[in-house]
């Protein structure tokens, strides 16, 4: 159980770090865009996927 908890915590830390990096990359990419394109939507979808994952880890459910 403790091993699982520690794995979840480190998974969560990686995801939180990645979210910060992704956020910066997304801002850089979309700075000059006026409309969504494939890449800008992909950034957004990836962010949502990470945020859901973090939320699920926090709520301690089996979703993922």
């Amino acid at each position, binding site marked *: 159980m403790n091993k699982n908890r520690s794995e979840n915590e480190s998974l969560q830390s990686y995801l939180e770090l990645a979210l910060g990096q992704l956020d910066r990359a997304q801002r850089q990419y979309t700075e000059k865009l006026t409309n969504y394109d494939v890449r800008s939507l992909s950034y*957004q979808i*990836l962010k949502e996927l990470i945020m*859901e994952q973090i939320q699920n880890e926090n709520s301690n459910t089996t979703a993922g």
Partner: protein
Amino acid sequence: MKIAILQLARIGDIFQTAPAINAYKRLNKNHTVDLIVRNKFSEACDLLKNIDSVIELPTKHILKPLIQANADITTSITNLENWILHLASQDYDKVINLSFSPLSSWITFFLQSASQKQIEVAGYTRTSDGFLSIPDDMSAYVYAQCGPGYPNRFHLAEIFGTLLGVDLLPEDWDTQELKPYPLPFDQPYICIQTRASAEHKSIPPEKIAQIVNTLKKFINLPIVLLGSNLDSDAARIVLNSSTYQHLFDYTGKTALIETAAIIKHASLFIGPDSSLQNIASLTGTKTLLLSIGNVNFFETGPRAKGSFVISDQDASNLEPESIAKTVVAMLYSDSVVTKGYYLVNDIPCYKKNGDEENLFKWELINYIYRGLEAPKNFSPQFELAVQKLYDVNQFAIEILEQVNQGASLKDKVIFLEQAEEIISAIEKLCDSIAPIIAWYRTEKMRIGPGPHELVLQKTLDVHKLLDLLCTSILEHCRSQSCQHDLPKEEIL
């Protein structure tokens, strides 16, 4: 016609989607139906009929490059794009998003944006400026009125059916053919699941052991404990704490389709609000749902004929003797006298046994959304709150009319913000008005981006609808108000 159905919620939601898909295919035999689910839950689709392709969202594959000291965002994005561009290349005519989540709304928006044609969409998507877009009334209803702690009493199966444009029939609760699973006895049996996907919905194994031990006084049928390998510890506690002789632990020992086969042939399924009780609905297995905590079982509860729900905030309040008697009644007679909810062929699909319920908010929802009779028991506080809402809405309409006639929105926006603050205050002071305010806020939120005049007109339309709603409710209140003595002090 090729349609994509997005079901990116949990395994239980995939099962709840099955009746709507079956009904859709019953009515549209030649349509192609693809179901998009998370790969973690795709095993659930083995039970479903009428799906042409299951497309899995490979969450792990997409996120794996991020799980390291230097997150590899480029690979992660490439993995995602490979998946989503493949999905977009399927050239769907219709996308039905049953997930009600930000992620699914962006995926739906991607499919719309990537398509060369106008895709028909139901469910959450995004506007051109990235805000949540809710194109259909059913999803707007879900946004405003559904979830734990909310007054909704429409079952998810019917909500999904509405989003797919179909009415459900009893025969739509059905699965793929399930081969009987060999069990070490040849007599009727009961299935029990202890854990749900979330701890707050689960029943402690010690409580299950007490229930099983009490059942010994009344029955001698084999009891099969079911669940995944995550449930095995709980099952072991039940086994160790129970004196029931015919107890069989199958947790973590069967594939989902085998578990479904065991449930199908059981005389009764007992468990918390979980995916297995959703399977029992599809296999037509009578279910005793022990609904624990802040769960809205009206949305997710059992649908097999003869099912019953015992609901309590705290599992420790469940009385083993009462549950055991309910089990006996469900097995051997049609009449259950326990306090709880029995299944009916109506909306909502459960009716309370015993005391009358205070259904004011649900009645209000029916009045707003279905045009049914207004609630009968308006309180003086509610009437005052609606009066205040009417007044502040009149004020907002006046301001918006001024802007419509050329006044500067910049100068007037402060008054509109004040009106919204007053609406929030009214909601805080009178909880029973919440369904009206949730409806109003959702309709405002549904106004997408566009030219100033159009947005202004749509905003005015929502306020005018709120005006009509408040006026009509106040008329009902006044027709009843001779029965009330209004309080002397006002609520604001």
